[in-house]
């Protein structure tokens, strides 16, 4: 009802339903989680490399 009124007022179709029922936050949550894992992995690699450099210097 309200959505169809918005759709009539606005010519271009957008994902208004997904926004109004909050499902868009599920998508944002999934993408955020994936990148949390990726950045954690990148940080771990960075730290491991720092440890290797430290070893390399002392040896």
């Amino acid at each position, binding site marked *: 009802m309200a959505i169809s009124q918005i759709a009539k007022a*606005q*010519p*271009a*179709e*957008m*994902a208004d339903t997904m926004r109004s029922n909050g499902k*868009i936050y599920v*998508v*944002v949550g999934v*993408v*955020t989680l994936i*990148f949390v894992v990726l*950045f954690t992995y*990148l*940080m771990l*690699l*960075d730290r491991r*490399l720092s440890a*290797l*450099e430290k070893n*390399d*210097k002392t040896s």
Partner: protein
Amino acid sequence: MWSVFPSRSSCFHTFGANKKNGTLKLPFALKIASIILVFFALIAGFLVDVPRLDILNETIRNLFFHVTSWFAMVFLFIASFGYSIHYLNTGNAKSDLLAKIFVQTGMVFGVAGLSTGMLWAQYTWGSYWVPDPKLNGAAVALLAYLAYVVLRNSMTDELARAKVSAVYNIFAFVMMVIFIFILPRMTSSLHPGNGGNPAFSSYDLDNSMRIVFYPATIGWILLGLWISELKYRIETLHKKDEEFSNASPIHLDGD
């Protein structure tokens, strides 16, 4: 904070050289900034209000991901270009290594830009590949950089390889500028900002999109620098290791 074109004296200030042990590190603050900005781009990119346009619809949000990866690629190629010039000026082997790494990381972002662009084109322009000067130009530019990698790998003499690839890198950079930024502007292109128009005045970038787009660009660029830094550190360690294993038999003979 850093200069894109490294000067003779401070070539490693791009990364902030650690003078104590001679390693090259991207400041930790910039890594944190990269994480924050990329997350801002991801979250705000989905949630920010965007203009309602026909055909584009919600795909206009691809601007935060597709265009930013091209920007990251161009930035990394500029850095590589700068280090190649620096190499030719000074003969510093580190600059040659950095030039190579920036090309490699830049190409990753370029492939990301090309493939995301193809997907976007399918749903807005109707085909994965359209005969658009910007598309073909981007493909040619990426091939020019692919040739850089092939050229490097084809040479075994380190000094010759460094010199020839530095000179070729300058050529590849000019090719990229011509094929991505000049030629598409001289003819009509489906991409916004082409066909004689300067890039940003004709973008359908309203203010809410700019607020996400610019931080997103900086975030992806910093991520590119971070990955390049890791690659540089790995290759430096690898080199040291090789030198060590080459030197050790002599040492053992001495015993």
